[in-house]
Every structure is written in C-alpha cells, then in structure tokens.
C-alpha cells in the first residue's frame, strides 16, 4: 500500500498542469488558428444558400433566394448597392468580402430537416461553402445549425422564429437576425390588452413542432400576465389541411379569443376555416370574438386573402417602413423583381451583409474570428433601427413590428398595416430566461 505525500512541489506541478489544461480552449481561439473549414485560397469565396425550393415554403424560399442574389450583386459592386450605403458599418465597399469576389451555391431544404442537412453538407464538402445560410422553418434551421457547428462553418439563420434556435438549441457557430416567439409575445401583449381588454379567454391552436410549442408558451405567458385566461391549448398536426374538427370545439368552449400558432399553409387554412365557421361574427361573454395570428408574413396574408382584415400579429420587418435602409432595400429589390420584398427576403439579405461585414472587420473567414466580430455587434441602417447581436446567445435584438390585416388594401402588396413599433427594450429578456434555458453555446468550431 503506497502512501501519498503532499508536498509544495507536487501542488505547484499539479496546479500548473490543471491550469494549462483549462487554458487550452482559450489558446485555441481564432487568433491562434491557422486553418479552418473551406478557407478560401483563390480570388473568390463561396457562400451556401440553403432554402426551400420545393415543398410548402417554396415561395418563401424563392423570395429568400432573390434577396441572396441581390446581396451578392451588391457585395460585388453591382446594382445600386442597396443597404450597403445605409448600413452603419462601412467596411463593405462593393469589392466582395476581404477583396474576394462572392460566389454562391444553392441547396434545396424541401422544408425537411434531413434534406436540409444533406444539402448543407453537400455545399460544405463538395462546393467549399465557407458559410451556410437560409431556412424557412425552425425545425430545419436548428438541424442545419447543428450540422454547421459540427462542420466548422458559420450558420446565418434565415426565417426561424422558435425560441429554441437561440435558446436550448443555440450553437456558437449559429447566428439569428430574425426575431422569436418571446419577442412576438412581448410586443403583441400590450397592444392586445389596449384593444381587447384584460378579461379575455384565449384558445390556442398550435402547430405541433418546436416553433409552435415555443410560440404557444410565449403568447400564453404574456397574455396570462396581463389577466387573460387560457381556456385550452390544442396541438394540430403539421400536415393538417382541414382544421374544421379543431375549430368546431372552439365554438362552445367559452373562449372569446382564438390564437392561431400556425404559419404558412397551416395558418392560411386554419384562419380560413375559423372564418368559415363564423368565429369573427360571434359574440361570446358579451365581447366580439377575436382571432390573433402572432406571426404574420405578407406572403401568408396574400394566401389568406380577405380573412386577415383586422387581425393582429407581429412581423420582423415590412416593406412599408420609411427608414432609409428599408427604402433602399425596397427600391433595389422592387426595381429588380417588380414587387416588394417579404420579411424572409429582408432577414436573409441582412444576414448576408452582416456576415460579409463581420469577415471584413475580423480580417478573416475563420468562423471563430467571424463569430467574435458578430458577438456584441451593434449596428443600424438595415431596416430595424438600432440592433444588437447579443454575445450570450447570438440573437439579434431590435424593434418589433405589431401589424394588423389592412381593412382597405390599395394594392395586392398592401395587406398589412403597422400599428406599433415596439421598442427593443420592451422585447429583451435575460439570456438565462426559463423559456431559453437548457442550452449552451459551447465553443466555436473552426473545423479543419
């Protein structure tokens, strides 16, 4: 049996070894890395645009692709420059990124996680994409974000609204410009209270996947905090097209508000069914029955037609904003394509510019350097006012728009009206907020 003798020399040796071990992750940061996945060696750099080109969100994906192509044009010094001139950071001069001409490859997510991961993998491994961006679904965004973390490339998320993307599923290599369910709820609740009062009974119909769950949780918490009662929360299959059997129980549930936590085709169909069943003409508890669609998009509003009139919701951005950045983007996009951009187009355009700017400021394409440049970055001029890319969770914080379906549209694009711009401070939350708990950014992964 040996006897352990604790000497001062042993303590110092052990401490030094432990200290070196603990310091190792810090030593392996951007500055010390010489290699990283798909480091550009020639005169060009390749970006990977991973959007739904088929499937239910194909129209949104098409709009995203238009915006990406516009961003590439502007980065390479073609076209009118769009928001390059209004962006508060002035590193983008139309000469590509770090002097390299921007090229791109595209992938089709099909709005399916496995297909999205496969196309992202292909773009990284075969096409040499140094950054992946895109997505029109939170399930897809979270799946691709995980892949990019493993592969050692930056993921600039497109349209993803689930709290989980920058909550429990956040990753060091992933960044989100789009807002989230919590922010929608924080912005909407005061407006709903002002319009509909504090004594309401809400019934939730929720798409049964990550985005629906977190939005339902956020909206229910925010409305209950102002005095509303949640009558029921019913999950609906994502593939459902006829919601009549879910709408019928609402009629005699005692609810006087229906919250549709649905997006895309789900929202168009559930809202159409709700209107068919006469919910908007009902009077319950001596109050007019109201419908709320927490997350709106113009493309969805177009699909729902006249049914959206007067219905409140929130959106990340709208083409009718009159700040210089929005006007420049709408002009650029509208002149090229003949119609105004959607919020999906806006967010991916911004993400492309933000990535390019971060590379220029960091002086490298190394994901760890780019990540450091994005973390805590404050900017303006991209259409949402002053914006912060928070370092703790890689979520952008900015003003949130509360919108309403327009009663008297003047054109086929004029479907939503902005009723309030909720300031950034009102939609912020602590990084360890319970709705975002459980995840860990981890360390950035430069790959190779």
């Amino acid at each position: 049996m040996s006897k352990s003798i604790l000497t001062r020399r042993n303590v110092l040796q052990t401490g030094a070894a432990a200290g070196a071990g603990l310091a190792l992750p810090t030593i392996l940061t951007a500055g010390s890395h010489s290699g990283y996945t798909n480091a550009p060696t020639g005169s060009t750099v390749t970006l990977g645009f991973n959007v739904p080109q088929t499937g239910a969100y194909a129209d949104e994906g098409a709009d995203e692709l238009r915006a990406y192509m516009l961003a590439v044009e502007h980065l390479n010094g073609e076209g009118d420059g769009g928001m390059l001139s209004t962006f508060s950071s002035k590193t983008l001069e139309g000469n590509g990124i770090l002097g390299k001409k921007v090229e791109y490859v595209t992938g089709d997510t099909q709005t399916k996680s496995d297909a999205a991961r496969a196309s992202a993998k292909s773009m990284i491994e075969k096409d040499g994409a140094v950054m992946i961006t895109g997505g029109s679904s939170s399930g897809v965004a979270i799946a691709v974000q995980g892949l990019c973390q493993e592969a050692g490339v930056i993921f600039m998320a497109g349209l993803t609204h689930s709290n989980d993307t920058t909550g429990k599923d956040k990753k060091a290599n992933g960044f989100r410009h789009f807002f989230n369910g919590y922010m929608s709820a924080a912005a909407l609740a005061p407006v709903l209270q002002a319009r509909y009062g504090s004594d309401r009974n809400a019934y939730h119909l929720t798409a049964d996947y990550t985005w629906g769950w977190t939005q339902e949780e956020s909206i229910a918490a925010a409305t209950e905090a102002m005095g509303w009662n949640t009558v029921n929360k019913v999950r609906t299959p994502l593939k459902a097209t006829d919601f009549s059997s879910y709408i019928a129980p609402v009629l005699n549930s005692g609810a006087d508000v229906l919250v549709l936590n649905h997006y895309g085709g789900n929202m168009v169909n559930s809202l159409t069914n709700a209107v068919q069943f006469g919910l908007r003409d009902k009077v319950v508890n001596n109050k007019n029955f109201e419908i709320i669609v927490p997350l709106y998009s113009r493309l969805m509003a177009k699909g729902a037609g006249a049914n959206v009139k007067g219905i409140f919701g929130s959106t990340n951005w709208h083409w009718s904003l009159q700040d210089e950045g929005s006007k420049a983007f709408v002009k650029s996009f509208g002149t090229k394509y003949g119609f105004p951009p959607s919020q999906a187009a806006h967010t991916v355009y911004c993400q492309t510019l933000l990535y390019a700017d971060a590379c220029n400021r960091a002086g490298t394409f190394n994901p760890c350097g780019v990540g450091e440049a994005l973390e805590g970055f404050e900017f303006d001029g991209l259409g949402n006012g002053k914006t912060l890319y928070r370092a703790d969770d890689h979520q952008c914080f900015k003003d949130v728009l509360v919108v309403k379906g327009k009663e008297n549209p003047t054109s086929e694009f004029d479907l939503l009206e902005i009723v309030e711009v909720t300031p950034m401070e009102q939609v912020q939350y602590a990084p360890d907020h319970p709705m975002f708990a459980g995840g860990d950014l981890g360390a950035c992964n430069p790959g190779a």
Partner: protein
Amino acid sequence: MDAIILQILNGLDKGSAYALIALGLTLIFGTLGVVNFAHGALFVIGAFCAVTLNRIFSVSFETIDPTKVDFLGNPATIKTTYLEHWFGVGPAAWMTDWSVPLAILLAIPVMLLVGVIMERGLIKHFYKRPHADQILVTFGLAIVLQEIIKFFYGANPIQTAPPDVFIGTMDLGVWLGFEANAIAYPYWRMVYFLFSTVIIGGVFAFLQFTTFGMVVRAGMADRETVGLLGIDIDKRFTITFAIAATVAGLAGVMYTPITPPTYDIGVELLVLSFVVVVVGGMGSLPGAVLAGFLLGIVESFASMNEVKNILPGIDQIIVYLMAIIVILVRPRGLMGRKGVMED
C-alpha cells in the same frame, strides 16, 4: 351533444371528399386493375380549374393613374378586368362571385380529356405489368403533375371564395332544439356534402341503369367473357377512367372554398383515400363510399379535446388504426368481394 353533432357534420364533410376520391380509385381499380397513385393529382387539377377560371375572370388591362403612386413611388397602374370592360360591372362581379360553381363547366371537359390522355397515353401500357410498376409510374406521374401546377401557380395556398350567398353559417342548433348558435355550420360545407351525394348517386345510377354501366359492371366481374362477347371493353374502360378522373376533379373544384388549394393537397387525400378503399373493400363501390364517410366521422371524433386528452395524438393515427382493426376483423374490408386482389 352539440359538440358531437358538429363533429358528425365535420365527418360527413371530410368523408364526402374521401368518398369521391375513393369512388374514382375503386372504379379504376375494379375496371382496369390499375392502382392509380396519380388520382390525388386529378383532384388537384380539378381544384386548379377553379383557380384558373377565377384568374381568367381577373385578366385585366392597365391604365396609369397619375394621382396615385405604387410602392416604388412611380405612377400607379389601375387594373380593369376585361370581363368588366365587356359586360359591365354587375355581370362581371356576378361571374367572379360564382367562379367556383361555374368552374364545374370548365372542369368537366378538362378532366375528361386529362383522363383519356392519361389512360391512353401512359396507363394502358402498364395493364399487364405488376402492381409495383403501376404504383411507381402513377406515383411518378403524380409528382410531375404537381410540379407543373407549382410552376404555374406557386407553392402558397390560393384563396378561392364561394359565392357571397354561401358565406356564413347556418344555425342548425335552433332547428334541433339547442340554443342559438350552439350548432352553426358553414353553408358551403353543407353545399359540398349535398354536391358529393348527388355525384355519388349519379355515378351509381349511371352504372346501375345504363347499358354502358351494365357492360362496365360485367367487365369488372369478368373482363375476358365480356371481351369474348365481341364488346370493345377497352374503349369502355377508357371512358370509365375519364369518368373517374372527372369525379375526382369535380370533388377538387368544389373543395377549393373549404381549403385554399395548394399543389400538394392531393397527396394527403390520396393516402387517406387508399385507406378508405382498403377498408371499404377492394373493388367495392358501395364499400368505398361507406368507408369514406365512416373514416371521416371517426377522424373528426378523434380530434375532439375530450378524446385527445385521454389518447394524445390519436387524431393523427386513428384512420390507420381503424384500417388495421377492420382488416383484422374483415380481411376483405367492409364490403370487399371475394377474389379481388387475392390471387
């Protein structure tokens, strides 16, 4: 009780669509022996006939209105439909309002033509091939048709409203002794149910009371003997295929105000309709109709909160669960005929 009645009505409504598609599927399978996975796409083509007619009625010419500006600040263009220009505001508004029912007139020739082309151009070459080949080729055809529709109409749902007179709900509860608005059901959904019963009745009457129908039924029972009698059964089967396509198409036309059509709406209905065919009994037309309505009602009841609270997620599997139970208890389905799909 009011909730139960509402779900029965919903079930009949859903069942109408299932029954109409399953009826066509069974007709094609019973006559041609072909498992047609493109049948859902025929429903979609019908639905987009309604969308197309609405768009035709909306074709317009533009004039510049210097007093207004567009989203880019340029002088706005005002659109006037040719319909309005030719017939005046009132008739144009009426035709646009009634575009869905009027689309039936467009859908009938279109669907008959599509049916004949599909059968003569592709499916007849697969009569003697294994069912697996038929499934592959018709499934491929369905994908091609869907993608063509998506190319022209996009992926987003397209709102197609019923005539104004059918917007709103009927208070059925008052008739049944309930409180006012306890059972309010949309007018158009009732129209759809009545329409489907008329179509189903029409198909049965056609098969039962016409010479053509008698030959088709005889062909379904024994194709070779009918052929030996000198009757050109192939020609009649082609027409039967076209009729089945038209039934699916008309179901699609009238369905557009219930659920805004998308290019892929047929897939979900097709899968459910195949289950309906199996539950009803392969080759049995009354079985397909019975199973369609039955599964529609069961599916609606499974969506009730009271049921979901006890069995979460049951609404997503109930149709398949029912199919398993029926097949275990009655292997040939509810009204299946001996010898069909048993060789």
